[in-house]
């Protein structure tokens, strides 16, 4: 069996995309991005700040539900994560519905804060573990938040890239187009092309996604996993064998 689990690979990939920042915020039901954020913090010296919105412990907000968005509006959130029932080749995300708006065929939960955060958070990392033509589409059925905006629109933020279970796409803001940056071990470019509904750029040779180092795996399993268990007990147990604890 492999030296690491897919979740560990994806968390490591995301941690590298995050880079050197001051504040990472992670929304609900995002255990892998949360793992990546806590990994960055475990490596750093007191920084970055990590706000897990579902957590009481890893969350400094004291001003109610508006503080996350105010904080982002102030330019004080450097990284956030978004997903989508559909994501298209221009980085538009759909969290609402497919089909006629008033009588849709499919309904998703809703846009949450995406229509604001996608505009004001400099590094928005798109994340979807189902990489298929059903999820990665030519054109979304509903734009919860657009991947790009006209030049006169106030938009310090936007998509940095898209991480899936098969590969990593970078996003070219000028051309509003994804670029295949690496394919995960055990996956192929052909497979990515076959399962991606939108057009994307790619170099002549696409590198394999760099696997997590032993040092990184050790930090994830020994430092991050126990912290994660407060918010994602099932995930921490399944992935890291962390003993189950009742969530706070």
């Amino acid at each position: 069996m492999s030296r690491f689990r897919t979740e560990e690979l994806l968390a490591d990939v995301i941690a590298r995309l995050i880079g050197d920042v001051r504040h990472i915020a992670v929304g609900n039901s995002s255990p892998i991005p949360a793992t990546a954020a806590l990994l960055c913090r475990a490596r750093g010296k007191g920084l970055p700040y990590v706000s897990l919105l579902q957590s009481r412990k890893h969350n400094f907000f004291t001003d109610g539900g508006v503080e996350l968005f105010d904080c982002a509006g102030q330019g004080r959130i450097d990284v956030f994560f978004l997903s989508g029932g559909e994501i298209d080749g221009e980085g538009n995300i759909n969290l609402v519905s497919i089909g006629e708006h008033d009588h849709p065929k499919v309904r998703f939960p809703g846009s949450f804060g995406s229509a604001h955060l996608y505009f004001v958070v400099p590094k928005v990392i798109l994340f979807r573990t189902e990489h298929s033509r059903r999820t990665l589409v030519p054109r979304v059925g509903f734009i919860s938040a657009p991947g790009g905006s006209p030049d006169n629109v106030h938009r310090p933020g936007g998509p940095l890239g898209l991480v899936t279970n098969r590969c990593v796409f970078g996003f070219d803001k000028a051309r509003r187009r994804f670029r295949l940056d690496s394919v995960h071990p055990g996956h192929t470019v052909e497979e990515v092309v076959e399962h991606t509904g939108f057009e994307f750029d790619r170099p002549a040779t696409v590198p394999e996604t760099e696997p997590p180092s032993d040092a990184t795996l050790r930090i994830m399993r020994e430092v991050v996993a126990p912290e994660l268990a407060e918010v994602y007990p099932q995930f921490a147990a399944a992935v890291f064998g962390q003993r189950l604890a009742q969530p706070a």
Partner: protein
Amino acid sequence: MSVIAASLDEALGAIADGIMLAVPREVAGVPMEATRALIRRGIKRLHLVALPTSSLQADLLIGAGAIATLETSAVSLNEFGPAPRFTDAIINGRIRMLDATCPALHAAFQAAEKGVPFMPLRGILGSDVLKFRPDWRVIDNPFANSDPIVLLPAIKPDVALIHAPMADRAGNVWIGRQRELATMAHAAAKTIVTVEKIHDGDLLADPVLAAGVLPGFYVERVAVAAKGCWPLGLPDHYATDLGHLAEYAKMAATADGFAKYLDEYVYERRAA
């Protein structure tokens, strides 16, 4: 008349059919016991505004036929998947859905709190959220050249219904970090609160407690509802009943199953 109601049903008297009712997100403490009482009473045609999202509460009210219009940013059962009655009602066009985005709802409540007709907000431009909200406006920022910005109209609910750890006999409610509960009370015409318990003494007397208090001045009625968020949790007090939510997700997947759920857990008063 004391602000402390003799019964939960009495406290909920001001919540009439057809009003605009504001309710909080899950981590702020959802008044589920009060929600079940409203369903038992047969509440109808609500314009429900969930600030900024909802889970079991909205799904239950929708399934029970209590909702005409739903205004929020998302409804789901989180780790237990989509909210089945919400999804079913939308796909079959049984409720009017006003899709929003979280900070837009916060801003609209803050506009009402300040007594101004609107609040500006960045982002949203170019989204279909904006396209399907003809009640929202886009203007050119008067302090710049060619800088479009969205304006959200104030949301002034008839009633805000919230739950909190405690209140004193003057109706002062301790909300702690859940500041949006104060914003909701400021924005709403009336605020009705269920609490875990009554605090003897004056919550405003101690500066440390007072920092987390919604003053009784804004509060219409208070009723005690111990474990009032069940099966949802009240942060720092009790956890979500995951087993029950899993059962709800399974039962509510079908109309029949949902009807059984209502019989078992709503119409039959559960033992506290």
